[in-house]
């Protein structure tokens, strides 16, 4: 589904991603871990197409097409979804209006009519149930005055509504309380099919107890320095990153 080949990207003279290689197949869950500032969010942003980052080399093949040739919204229309580490407020626009616009813009790009209000309502109701969201929430303005946890839940709610092929969850667990974490993780699991894939960026094993990854990658200074199965995350939880980063630093020296 997604094949990233030697991706280099950064801001101005500062190269942040220094040659990322990653392959994700449909149906898989990949976890990306790594110390603060290692480039995890940058990778997610570059996949989603944030213009701020200059891509200096490499490809991001998504179902046979290089994402780098597409605008962010075109990538979204193709089924790329990013749950933001820091979701943005859009004052004055209700959650339901935003989601409606988002769904209909995507349908428009596919040459489809707007979703009939009845279907939309039904879908909203279903997904709200899935994520234990109460009704009043739909008329609140996008992320305006939301608590940290509410913002994260709102991200996953949008994901549930948009049913992406590739979902990248950037530290969705941070800010969620214990119950919310379980609810959101269960929601993510229920949305999994053999045709979609999930990338979870996280610092904690806790989330991976719920969303069990097929692969775990460690990103350090803009490179994937180690990959393994789900046990790698457990090992990191116990030992920290030192043993990996020291090794990498030695190699690069």
């Amino acid at each position, binding site marked *: 589904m997604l094949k990233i080949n030697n991706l280099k990207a950064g801001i*101005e003279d500062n190269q942040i991603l220094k040659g990322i290689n990653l392959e994700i197949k449909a149906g898989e869950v990949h976890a990306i871990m790594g110390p603060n500032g290692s480039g995890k969010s940058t990778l997610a942003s570059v996949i*989603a*197409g*944030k*213009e*701020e980052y*200059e891509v200096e080399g490499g490809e991001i093949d998504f179902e046979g097409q290089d994402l780098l040739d597409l*605008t*962010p*919204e075109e*990538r*979204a*229309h193709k089924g790329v*979804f*990013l749950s*933001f580490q820091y*979701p*943005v*407020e*859009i*004052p*004055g*626009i209700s959650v339901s209006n*935003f989601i409606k*616009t*988002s*769904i209909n*813009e*995507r349908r428009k*790009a596919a040459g489809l009519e707007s979703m009939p209000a009845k279907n939309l309502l039904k879908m909203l109701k279903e997904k709200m149930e899935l994520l234990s969201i109460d009704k009043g929430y739909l008329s609140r*303005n*996008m992320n305006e005055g939301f608590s940290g946890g509410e913002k994260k839940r709102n991200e996953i709610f*949008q994901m549930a509504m*948009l049913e992406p092929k590739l979902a990248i969850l950037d530290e969705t667990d941070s800010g969620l309380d214990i119950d919310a974490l379980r609810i959101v993780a269960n929601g993510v699991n229920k949305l999994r099919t053999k045709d979609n894939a999930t990338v979870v960026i996280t610092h904690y094993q806790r989330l991976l107890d719920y969303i069990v990854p097929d692969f775990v990658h460690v990103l350090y200074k803009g490179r994937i320095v180690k990959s393994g199965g789900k046990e790698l995350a457990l090992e990191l939880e116990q030992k920290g990153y030192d043993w990996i980063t020291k090794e990498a630093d030695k190699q690069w020296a």
Partner: protein
Amino acid sequence: MSEKRQQSEDKLLEKVTTTEYKYGFTTNIESDTIPKGLSEDVVRIISAKKNEPEWMLEYRLKAYRAWLEMEEPNWANINYTKPNYQEIIYYSAPKQKPVLDSLDDLDPEMKAMFDKLGISIGEQNKLANVAVDIVMDSVSVATSFKEKLGDLGIIFCPISDAIQDHPELVQKYLGSIVPARDNFFSALNAAVFSDGSFCYIPKGVKCPMELSTYFRINEAGTGQFERTLLIADEGSQVSYLEGCTAPMRDENQLHAAVVELIAMDDANIKYSTVQNWYPGNAEGVGGVFNFVTKRGICYKNAKISWTQVETGSAITWKYPSCILKGDNSIGEFFSVAVTNNMQQNDTGTKMIHLGKNTKSTIIAKGISAGKSEGNYRGLVRISKGATNSRNFSQCDSLLMGDKCGAHTFPYIEVKNNSSKVEHEATTSKIGEDQIFYCNQRGIGTEAAIALIVNGYCKDVLNQLPMEFAVEAQKLLEISLEGSVG
């Protein structure tokens, strides 16, 4: 800034400059135009053309003489070359003035123009329940629903007709709220105004439909000086809307209007404006100079609510105001003012609290894009006798790009201790983060801006009558097309 980003900005900038003003066509309608220039004779000619009674001519001449001694104001935060008042044509009227209520006989050119403007004076408005008065250049050309309104005792007609048919009302109220001497432009208007709308709602009557006046400048070199007088008698209610457009011309056109509202005890007036005069091109050539004086007075328990969506004009100078004379009266001002390219805007309101327990609310939302300048200027004055009065003001500015400016000038005077004034102000930018967030959800940049702007203006747009809220929303989108920075 990355090269890619620079390129995309350049592309967008190009788009702004090529986005055309949709209403910029001219219409070939034969008109009766007097020579340019202003003098006592011109004032007399205008009055004579309209067959006005002596008192009206006297009123005009007095205003003209006052104007001669006044100076064009300089205090607003706008820069423009002052018009040469001798180069302006003060009267121009379409030759064929249709007989009222037989709109089917309208000049086909004129009909085509209204179609282009998206106004239909016939069936559609009947469905939409809107009565329309249309003022083109200097005269009112069509008023619909006159009879239906007449059954309720409502008078809705061109002010020139009201001068003939209801002189007692006009004489009593004209200039009572905005005296000719009030300011340079109101004096000019009083001297030369040629038409506008007049409206009277009798005691206890709730006007069953939206009343609407549509203003159009067509003729080259003409100034438009319309005059609106709206009287809501005790316990009555009315919602009134005005819209304005003009052709694209390279020279600046002058528009100096005066609007007076009178809300008697317990009356309620809602006055909405969607102002879309030609703003000039991207280099700042052409466009309408919009100098407007709007003021209303509220008697006991009365309420006046001004709502304006201002997207047009090269220069706007406009401060719809409320004099809260009666106890418990309420004044409101809801405004969205957009400037793009080289537009300049100095707009706001005045809330003058005189009665006890009076309340006012000001929600002003400025949006500046391109190289434009937006200014909010507002006065809240709570006099000594206006005990227990309240004002809440919120003035927000939204900047798009870094070549535009926004300024806020709030003036607050409170002369007693039992009153309370609250003022909030914010300045924000449409963030790249917000746009990227929308993009990531499949919403393209143009649509994202429209969404963000609509969200920002929601509190104001919600005040507009339903039919017009949609129109205003579209207008905002058009005015800001391609203006991301």
